[in-house]
């Protein structure tokens, strides 16, 4: 058992960690260790080499302010960008929250300054509606989409994802991505079409923070099992953990948000 190891790649922790995003990293790490597996965290900062990126089994990206987002995009060019695109194309799992989905789409138009070209991995675009337009802020509940059906045998499976959203940008999906789910309460991608997030291969983009993984532990386990299956070329059964407290936190917020 002990030789099972995953390497978690944390996108620009100094620049893109605004809304408690570190919790997603801690959550993946602990849920590996509690099961007797190992996990390494690698910071993918500006200094990160291609060799380091190649070793990553799960990518995790968080939120950033517009200024920081631009610094990241200046760095994510050329070979680095191509390598990450290839890895996601080859089914390396990733969870990208808040600001980072905007980077993975085709482009992002910030409130100030020029359009920022994205990596183009996800078929979607994001636009900031301007400083006068209210941001999308509040608790959000999403009903999971079809993609999740095949994971219903997870003991901690839940129909709802819960989190908090706070974004000025609005995201519009293209044909080649599927939404993560349907907004039951909150704004989601753009506050218009009821979609939230995007799925491409094994990579997930979402405006939900909170952070999303410890609040929705089955989603964390889903990422781990996708990563384990890809790395070890077989299904690895994940031992069920005691998620009583996580479920209570989850259910409390679903109930309260839907009642509002």
């Amino acid at each position, binding site marked *: 058992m002990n030789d099972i190891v995953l390497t978690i790649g944390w996108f620009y922790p*100094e*620049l893109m*960690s*605004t*809304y*408690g*995003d*570190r*919790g997603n990293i*801690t*959550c993946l790490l*602990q849920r590996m260790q509690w099961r007797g597996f190992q996990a390494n965290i690698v910071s993918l900062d500006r200094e990160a080499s291609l060799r380091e990126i190649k070793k990553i089994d799960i990518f995790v990206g968080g939120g950033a*302010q*517009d*200024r*920081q987002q*631009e*610094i990241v995009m200046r760095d994510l060019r050329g070979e680095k960008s191509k390598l990450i695109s290839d890895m996601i194309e080859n089914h390396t799992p990733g969870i990208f929250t808040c600001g980072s989905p905007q980077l993975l789409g085709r482009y992002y138009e910030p409130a100030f300054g020029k359009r920022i070209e994205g990596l183009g991995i996800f078929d979607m675009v994001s636009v900031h509606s301007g400083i006068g337009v209210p*941001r999308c*802020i*509040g*608790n959000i509940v999403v009903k999971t989409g079809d993609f999740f059906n095949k994971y219903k045998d997870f003991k901690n499976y839940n129909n709802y994802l819960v989190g*908090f959203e*706070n974004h*000025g940008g609005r995201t519009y999906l293209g044909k080649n991505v599927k939404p993560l789910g349907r907004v039951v309460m909150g704004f989601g991608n753009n506050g218009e079409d009821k979609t939230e997030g995007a799925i491409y291969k094994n990579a997930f983009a979402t405006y939900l*923070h*909170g*952070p999303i993984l*410890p*609040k929705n532990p089955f989603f964390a386990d889903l990422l781990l099992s996708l990563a384990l299956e890809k790395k070890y070329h077989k299904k690895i059964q994940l031992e069920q953990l005691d998620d009583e*407290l*996580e479920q*209570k*936190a989850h259910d*409390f*917020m679903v109930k309260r948000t839907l009642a509002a």
Partner: protein
Amino acid sequence: MANKIKVICLVFIGKIFSRLSRLFNLGNGSTWPGQIALLIFPEILTYYESHIKKGIILVAGTNGKTTTSQMLSTVLNNSHFCVIHNSSGANLLNGIISCLLINSDFHGRLLADYAIFEVDEATLPQILHYLTHKNLSIILLNLFRDQLDRYGEVDNIARKWTEAIRNIPKEAKLIINADDPQTAHIGIHAARLVYYFGLEDKNLYLKSKEHAADSIYCPNCGEKLIYHGVYYSHLGVWECAGCKETRPKTHLNNWPQPITGLYNLYNTLASVLTLQILKLSDFEINTGFKKFHPAFGRQEVFEIDGKRIIILLTKNPVGMNVAIRSIIQELKLTSGNKGGYFLLALNDLTPDGRDVSWIWDVDLEELVKNSIMLICSGIRSYDLGVCIKYAGCKNFIVETNLLNAIKKGLHSISPGESLYILPTYSAMLEVRKILTGKKI
């Protein structure tokens, strides 16, 4: 003349309202009169300005507003100045105007030498819009990530401050934290008289950087800043390799502090520098400080049957990190390495910020390592519990009800021992109500 009549009516309503709310323990008497005034006479601030003889002092920043303004008002009062101060912590425009109304006489006159207002980050631009007083001092303490759902990102606040400061009276003085690149940047480009405070003590440098640091990139050009040393969060001795913007030289970097904690050293420096600019002598400042008592919920101590309860308001990751650091230091001095008893209370009402994700940016591992008992309480006690669990804590109690949580905490300690309560804002008011039986 019409304005004067409006003001007299408002004062009348305000005073009655404030009495009634105190009588019936409603707890919101410090904002309603101002709210009404804003509706019928929004320029009331400009009207009152001329009644304040010697000067107006505004205190802004994420952390330390209440303590700093408390220091200023204690010293000025002690030197026999007539001071008005929004000491209840109501720091939005409605609270500040209420404070003016309640302190007026029934003729709508205000007799004050100084007005000290702590001002909410988002309110600073609004209040500056109305003020034309030539003896205006503005203290900028710091900018940390705080209530992102209400204020937006830190850059956003900094931008609004910069714009608002562009139009302040030419004679206005700025008192600015040089160690915070974000506030210092505002000072450097302000074209007004700026006085800087900051630390000059290498012994206080942190050994490793905290997680909840915001402005490690240059506010001027976006390049990564070089730090020769960090005091806490992103406060330190900084310099930009790109555009060469550098931490300004300080006018004050040391003073005996009337209350412990590194963050309170900054508050001390800010208030002393301001008082020096107002021409108070060092002797007056130090005698004033002897009378200083912390404001409610800020290291406030209660004693019940020989057991101590210490309340430390914690409302954002940086504030909570420094609070944890100072408690651990205190524990090491007083109880050896035994550890402490803690009650954390997390609410998500409007004054707390509805987004509680910030708790994941706190270095809770330190608290877990140094605790004998940890109770998670408040509306979002489960979220707090989850966060504590992932920080590696195996033994903790989740008790949503604050009264029961306090009882459990008190029950676990012996006389002579202390229970540290770290609540968010509305939870702090609730804790105080439980302990004192009344609202602020």
